[in-house]
């Protein structure tokens, strides 16, 4: 394996991580399933390329513009669909994702189904790592604020959340908006890495892939999201030795995790400094008394219990 190949996989990990982080806020912390986030990636990708090539904005600004456009697109969609109960929202996002893809297929301004080629390859391992790290940092801080806690409350018990004064629609919209911004930035990173855009890249399969990464990593855990997206991006590549069987092994390992750990890899727990301390502590001493430090680091203050 040469460095160029490994670097490529790492960049893909960073792109996926950025998108999955946003989706993790929506699915893992707010409890809303989306099967249309590839649609937001598409919007962000095309908008970022438009901003960069047609408007001549510098790369970071173009990426943010892509994220912002995806976020703005999410607002009317959220307003229309977030009043729907669980499953209906999921179906609405599925429809949105497919609609975006079909629109892009048919609008010739963006190259239609042939795609948009000749995008300068600007995404490097350095800037994708920077974006993913910044994204992780922001997300960790967000979920440990009252805003994050309100979203978790909606996931846990929406009716009760509303009766303690949480504006459920507002927080669901906020969660969808932020997740769309993350997806949009990821879409921009992807466009500037591959050097071309094609509506086909943003199919429902792509959306499903993102959702699988969230669930695989564990609902309501940022560390799980990071682990899940890196493992599931790298796994198909590591399995190339199995040739034709690699996708079977990929599917089987996802099913294996779902059966053995239905809550996902991390299942609402976080890897934190307190967690490492716990690991290093001799066996048998770690009693029932939850250490105070874990509270601050766990998702929504949940400590790690074994």
């Amino acid at each position, binding site marked *: 394996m040469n460095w160029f190949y490994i670097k490529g996989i790492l960049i893909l990990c960073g792109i996926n991580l950025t998108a999955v982080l946003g989706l993790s806020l929506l699915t893992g912390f707010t409890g809303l399933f989306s099967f249309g986030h590839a649609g937001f990636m598409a919007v962000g990708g095309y908008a970022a390329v438009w901003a960069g090539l047609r408007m001549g904005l510098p790369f970071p600004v173009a990426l943010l513009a892509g994220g912002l456009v995806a976020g703005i697109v999410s607002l009317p969609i959220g307003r229309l669909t977030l009043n729907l109960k669980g499953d209906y929202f999921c179906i609405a996002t599925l429809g949105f994702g497919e609609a975006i893809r079909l629109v892009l297929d048919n609008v010739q301004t963006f190259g239609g189904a042939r795609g948009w080629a000749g995008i300068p390859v600007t995404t490097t391992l350095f800037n994708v790592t920077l974006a993913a790290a910044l994204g992780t940092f*922001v997300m960790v801080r967000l979920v440990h604020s*009252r805003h994050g*806690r309100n979203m978790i409350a909606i996931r*846990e018990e929406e009716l*009760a*959340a509303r009766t*303690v004064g949480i504006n459920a629609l507002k927080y669901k919209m906020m969660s969808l908006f932020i997740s769309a911004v993350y997806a949009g930035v990821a879409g921009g990173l992807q466009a500037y890495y591959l050097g071309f855009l094609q509506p086909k890249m943003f199919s429902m399969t792509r959306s499903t892939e993102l959702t699988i990464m969230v669930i695989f990593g564990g609902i309501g855990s940022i560390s799980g999201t990071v682990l899940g997206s890196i493992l599931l991006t790298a796994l198909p590549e590591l399995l190339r030795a199995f040739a034709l069987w690699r996708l079977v092994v990929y599917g089987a390992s996802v099913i294996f995790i779902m059966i053995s750990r239905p809550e996902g890899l991390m299942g609402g727990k976080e890897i934190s400094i307190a967690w490492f301390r716990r690991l290093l502590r001799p066996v048998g001493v770690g009693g029932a008394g939850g250490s105070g430090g874990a509270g601050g680091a766990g998702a929504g203050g949940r400590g790690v219990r074994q």
Partner: protein
Amino acid sequence: MSDILEVRHLTKRFGGLTAVDDVSFSVAEGSIAGLIGPNGAGKTTVFNLMTGIYKVTSGEIMFEGKPVHDLDPHIVAEMGVTRTFQNIRLFRRLSVRDNILTACHGRADYNVADSILHTPRYRQGERRLATESERLMDLMNLTEVASSRASELPYGLQRRLEIARALAVRPRLILLDEPAAGMNPDETMQLMALIGRIRDEFACTVLVIEHRMDLIMGICENIVVLNFGRKLAEGSPEVVQNDPAVIEAYLGAHEEVSAHA
């Protein structure tokens, strides 16, 4: 004493079924009032109408002189009315501390940018929320189980946590929906003492739905009796207990009544 809550000609229809039929009553500020009636009398529907979960068909609900019907539940909560649920609805996977901390959210006003940058406003706000939730857990004797998952608590404690979470909203009127359901006599006694303390220490008016007559008769100053969506009687425990219509609804004087109840 003035009335904190006034229900006027409240009616709720679900299709052909009239769940609440022209019910009027009022609750005095600082009192403990009871709402009783056989199963299906429309008690929980009244709570759902008061907290904005259902929209009223007609009539009005005035809280401190302002209408609260047909508002979103979170706005009703901000105005000072909150509730517990018949089938406990906790944030099950969160710790006791986080259940209360979450409900305290209205006490801090920092925005998303503050949380990401950890500005002084964020730190102050978080400190205030933490102090407030510790105080509440202390008052409600939940400090010992602060780190336990809500779903792992014994039943009685889950009920108490739900009340504590409602109090975190700083309500001026708290609606308790069958708080003693599934409790043993000992736990019920504790609950009665607790409800009295809530009224005194949190300066909060209490309206409670309950089937346990010992509890209702023991703590309520005023009782409203519903049957088939209509108000049957209202008054002090003595008055209600001796009301022939109430006795009939509960024990069934006629065949047709007992068949329904």
